[in-house]
């Protein structure tokens, strides 16, 4: 195993630990504002892990930080300031960890069955922004239009919320 590969695995494990810790922090934190801040760390560590999986995915990693962390999570955190009483009343549901464990085991078994007969590809093709743009404009133009309309609706909704209509 090369030195670069060792570094990549070490960084991946580091960000994996951060993401798991952030997820636990979000589910255990009593103040939801701090929980929303925890989501920033989760988003950044997931973006870093995606970039580490393969360098071809680095474009999406930047997109994830810019759009998801930069707008979604910041919007959530800032909007939470509007509320009084952000502290959460704890409810103890004894079967919740069991259901979470069952879901985890189910996804694991599902992935194990899916990938058991597949030979992994050793190297991916290089990423090209032009190919991605052509792909979206030629094959996925209809979802892109729907997305543009949805984002426009969101903007109108944000204005109407700000005006308290």
């Amino acid at each position: 195993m090369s030195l670069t590969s060792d570094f990549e695995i070490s960084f991946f494990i580091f960000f994996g630990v951060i993401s798991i810790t952030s997820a636990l922090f979000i589910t255990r934190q009593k103040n939801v504002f701090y929980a929303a801040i925890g989501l920033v760390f989760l988003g950044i560590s997931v973006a870093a892990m995606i970039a580490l999986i393969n360098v071809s995915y680095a474009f999406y990693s930047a997109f994830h930080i810019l759009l998801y962390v930069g707008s979604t999570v910041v919007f959530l955190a800032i909007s939470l300031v509007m509320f009084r009483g952000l502290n959460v009343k704890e409810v103890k549901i004894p079967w919740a960890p069991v259901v979470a464990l069952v879901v985890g085991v189910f996804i694991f078994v599902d992935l194990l069955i899916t990938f058991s007969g597949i030979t992994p590809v050793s190297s991916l093709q290089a990423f090209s922004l032009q190919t991605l743009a052509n792909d979206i404009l030629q094959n996925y133009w209809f979802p892109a239009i729907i997305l543009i309309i949805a984002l426009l609706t969101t903007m109108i909704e944000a204005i109407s919320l700000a005006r308290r209509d």
Partner: protein
Amino acid sequence: MLLPYLGLVVGILIGSIGVYGLLNSKNIVRILLSSEIIFNSAILLVFSASAILGRVYLPIVFSIFAVSMGLVEVVVAFAAIILYYRNKDSLEVE
């Protein structure tokens, strides 16, 4: 080639924590935050699985649409939460 498999494991763990948070809370904002944890885990699983299968553009296009729709979903959900808070003066789900 180890990293995609590690990504699958981390994705499953984060997703399980998200499901736990979703079930273990009556606060409407924490339910939204837990669903965001599951969303992040799903994105990580998609990229890990795609790296094993050798796909480059398909997961990127899928995730770009998913994250953008996630932004719309958060704003719409938050508008609903604000309305709920104005009516009930509380963030607790009954």
